[in-house]
């Protein structure tokens, strides 16, 4: 720990990020305001200097949506820089190290200063960008930005230098060497990289729409920034009930679904008649192909009050008619049933494939040792399925707030009487967006809520799993 001064640099960086320091100064106030159409009244909520946290308020109150996305990126960069710096300092103070020597610590430091540098540099670019947009010099970077640039750059180079020494000591290699050694693996990833970039990461910029009020005149990226206005409807909604419903249904679906899939997969795998094996598996796969649109019609004809199949049977035995469609308490069970019905065959395939991947010699050995069927399942099959099960479970947890929209929407439809027990987040959002057909922000905001919810859960759960058994962790 000879190089403690480097922590000082990190702290300094953090301090400079504090809101007292203006990162962006507004100059030529009058001409800028007149240029971008800010009135005297609007000026009341504007300032002469901004830091990265309140920069979006300028975008909002000066009605300059053009700068919105950039300002948001700056905010995220700032958050990342703070996070990495804080993590670095804390690790430094408590001396948390992983692996060889100080390498992991130094890597954390590198990360911190790198983000710090990017953040400061991006601020400068932002200033240039907005000045070009407004065709005048309206903004200048604050002194803090220049300081940050210098400090982070110098510190980064210094850490690099330290790292090189440390590497030599432990014979560890850097990214370049890694690239050289495992270049084949990197090449294998290129198509994947291109795919996810095009299909997922670039369109992810659209998350920004959650904070804007879209109009065609200004276009997607220059529409007015409105802060959290799109999230208001979440507060208006009975968010607790919706979240509870969605999560509970999903927990049941995932839990019961996986257990049944495993049971049936094992049953199919144990059956000896080959044709029976094939047929039963095929038959159980078939519900997957029945679309919810068709299912809805069948369900209605079964559960209708007057002519429905069940009520016909009930009355023919002299019973009272059951009013399914006006009584919410039946539906959680019915919906769960239809979900399971539709997905057992499909989900079973994964487990079946896993079971088929088990070496038959193991079973043979067990049989020779006199293990009966249940023992074989318990001691051989289930342990082999476990990794798959855990991964599938973990994977599903990330989408715990994302409901089975089609299932609920088609079967329940607009029947408000049943909403208390059957309204999930997705169906609610769908009804809301129907009333505001042109609002891009609303749906995006709802999606963001679902994503954040799932993200926090998965990060926590994955952390716990990783602690217990890194083999089973998702990432």
């Amino acid at each position: 720990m000879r190089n403690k001064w480097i922590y000082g640099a990190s702290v300094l960086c953090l301090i400079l990020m504090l809101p007292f320091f203006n990162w962006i100064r507004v100059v030529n106030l009058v001409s800028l305001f007149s240029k971008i159409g800010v009135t005297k009244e609007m000026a009341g909520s504007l300032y002469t200097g901004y830091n990265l946290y309140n920069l979006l308020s300028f975008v909002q109150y000066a009605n300059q949506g053009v700068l919105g996305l950039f300002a948001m990126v700056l905010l995220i960069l700032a958050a990342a820089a703070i996070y990495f710096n804080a993590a670095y300092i804390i690790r430094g103070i408590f001396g948390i190290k992983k692996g060889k020597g100080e390498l992991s610590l130094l890597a954390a430091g590198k990360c911190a200063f790198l983000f710090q540098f990017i953040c400061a540099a991006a601020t400068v670019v932002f200033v240039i960008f907005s000045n070009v947009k407004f065709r005048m010099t309206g903004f200048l970077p604050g002194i803090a930005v220049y300081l940050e640039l210098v400090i982070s750059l110098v510190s980064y180079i210094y850490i690099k230098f330290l790292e090189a020494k440390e590497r030599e000591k432990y014979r560890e290699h850097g990214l370049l060497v890694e690239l050289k050694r495992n270049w084949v693996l990197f090449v294998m990833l290129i198509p994947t990289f291109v795919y996810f970039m095009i299909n997922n990461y670039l369109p992810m910029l659209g998350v920004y729409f959650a904070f804007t009020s879209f109009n065609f005149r200004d276009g997607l990226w220059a529409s007015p920034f409105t802060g959290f206005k799109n999230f208001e409807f979440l507060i208006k909604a009975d968010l607790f009930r919706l979240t509870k419903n969605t999560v509970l249904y999903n927990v049941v679906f995932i839990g019961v679904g996986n257990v049944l899939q495993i049971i049936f997969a094992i049953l199919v795998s144990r059956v000896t008649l080959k044709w029976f094996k094939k047929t039963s598996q095929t038959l159980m796969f078939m519900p997957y192909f029945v679309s919810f649109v068709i299912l809805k019609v069948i369900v209605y004809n079964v559960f209708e009050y007057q002519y429905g199949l069940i009520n016909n049977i009930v009355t023919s035995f002299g019973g009272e008619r059951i009013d399914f469609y006006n009584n919410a308490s039946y539906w959680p069970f019915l919906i769960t049933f239809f979900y399971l019905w539709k997905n057992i065959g499909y989900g079973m395939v994964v487990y079946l494939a896993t079971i088929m991947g088990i070496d038959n010699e193991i079973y043979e050995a067990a049989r020779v040792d006199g293990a009966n069927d249940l023992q074989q399942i318990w001691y051989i099959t289930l342990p082999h399925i476990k990794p798959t099960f855990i991964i599938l479970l973990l994977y599903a947890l990330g989408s715990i707030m994302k409901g089975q929209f089609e299932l609920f929407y088609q079967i329940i439809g607009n029947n408000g009487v049943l909403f208390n027990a059957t309204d999930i987040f997705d169906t609610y959002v769908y009804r809301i967006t129907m009333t505001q057909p042109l609002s891009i922000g609303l749906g995006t905001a709802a999606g963001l809520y679902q994503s954040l919810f799932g993200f926090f859960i998965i990060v926590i759960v994955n952390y716990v799993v990783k602690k217990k058994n890194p083999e089973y962790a998702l990432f």
Partner: protein
Amino acid sequence: MKRKVLSVLLSMTMLAGAAVGCGSAGTQSAADQLEAEGVTQIPAAQEETKEETTQAPSESAAQEEAQGIDLSDQVDLVFYVMGDAPQDEEMVEGAINEKLLEKCNATIDMQFSTWTDFQQKYANEITAQSADLIYIANWLNYGQLASSGAFEELDDMLDSVAPDLKALVGDANLNMCRVGGKIYAIPNTWPEYVCNGVKYREDLRAKYNLPVPDSLENLEAYLLGIQENEPNQGLLTVTTEESQGLKTGFDAAWALNFKYPWVANNGLDYGLAANYDSPADVYDYWYSDDFVDDMKLMKKWADLGFWSKSALSDTNNSDAYKNGLCVAEVAGQNPNKQITAIADFENAGEGWESGYVAYGETNGIIYPGHATQNGTAIVRGCKNPERALLVLQTLLCDDEVNALMQYGIKGTHYDVADGIYKNIQEEAGETPTFPYEGFNTWNLRNGDTKLPQRTDVALQEMFDKYAVLGEKTKFPNVNIYDGFSENYDTYSAERSAVSNVMRQYLAPLEAGLVDDVDAAVEEFRSKMKEAGIDKCREEYTKQWQAYCEEYSYK
């Protein structure tokens, strides 16, 4: 060690404070700064950037003669319309483009939304700005799209580029397409009536000598009469399908239109209402005693078994009337659907007959469809707006091109006999490769030259009847309501909440599925208050009254 690090941190903190504290001016309110500088007024913004792009070309064009616009470069335009492409799309397009090249040195490429997710794709198309000309309609949110800047302004261009078009459509029609004072769309010129009403089984009515269901009482008597005589016959197949907006939650409630001479079917949004004769006098419906009485009537009907107890989830309604499963339809009906029903019953050959009563015939309020029901706009970002408008003028005003567009190629696809359109392939029993209005261009209907179909004769009879009634209203044959578009930016959260309460509390009320109407009404009303109905109503009323003021509907 820890202590050492901490001491370093501390000293750094002090250093930073010293270094930057003196350099920074601190955060100051911009208003204060302006005050300090003595600025009292910020000079008005000169919107160079915006004006340059939109204003300049149309201004320069305005100086030229209409036919004087530069036609030297060939322009290929995309025309986005709804629905599916006809089989002979390319053939007809080719024929049209031949003419267009000659007249405007332009071609059009028709692109079709298909009916799957069409609302979403329509919005995408405008966002992506890949089309030039586009079909617009009030059911595709024309008003909101236009006020949000989705289309090019046409005011100046119409004078300079397309005076014939302007003359054909007429100022009255064009004015109805104004949003925020600007014209963004060219309507079609064929007047039609879409008066909602009740479709009922005339044969059964006559057989049991029941009254024509032209009022709530008669409708009840009609349904009761059939119930009595044919206990196994279904009466109404109603669900929530036609009632998705902010007016009603359940289809049967449409029947209440018999009772009220409102400016629009089912009243205004948010349970407000205004009479046609005094549209600016907005009054309350959901919190009135009338509403409670109406809900009691609905409950009575439900208890009488007019509709299924499971009606809120009913999935069978689509073809119910056609197949004789119900004896009346009250929601979302119009003269055109009546014509279809007549044809369906003829095909069924069971001796069924369909009758139709428009709500307006009873409550006295009848008006034609609004101009924005079928129109064409130029998408913002179109590179050649003048040429697009010129092409549109040709498509609508040039009889030859218009006929090609609407009916296909004469002799191949259609023929005219006694002034009536006749599809050649259909007559021969084949599937038509280019049916009537095969491009779905209802926006290019030219009222002067539109060829009637065989079924149009009966339709026209109905229209004529309504036109006479429409003349007698205070604003003769004016559709007031459909020209209004609400701007709910400031209360969208409340609006959403209100719509949700409607699904959850109003729909069961209107479906008569509650035990105690008074209590359920109370619950509905208090939930509405919680959802923020007052804010919605206040804003809505303001906008609506401003709209009435603008068009002097007083």
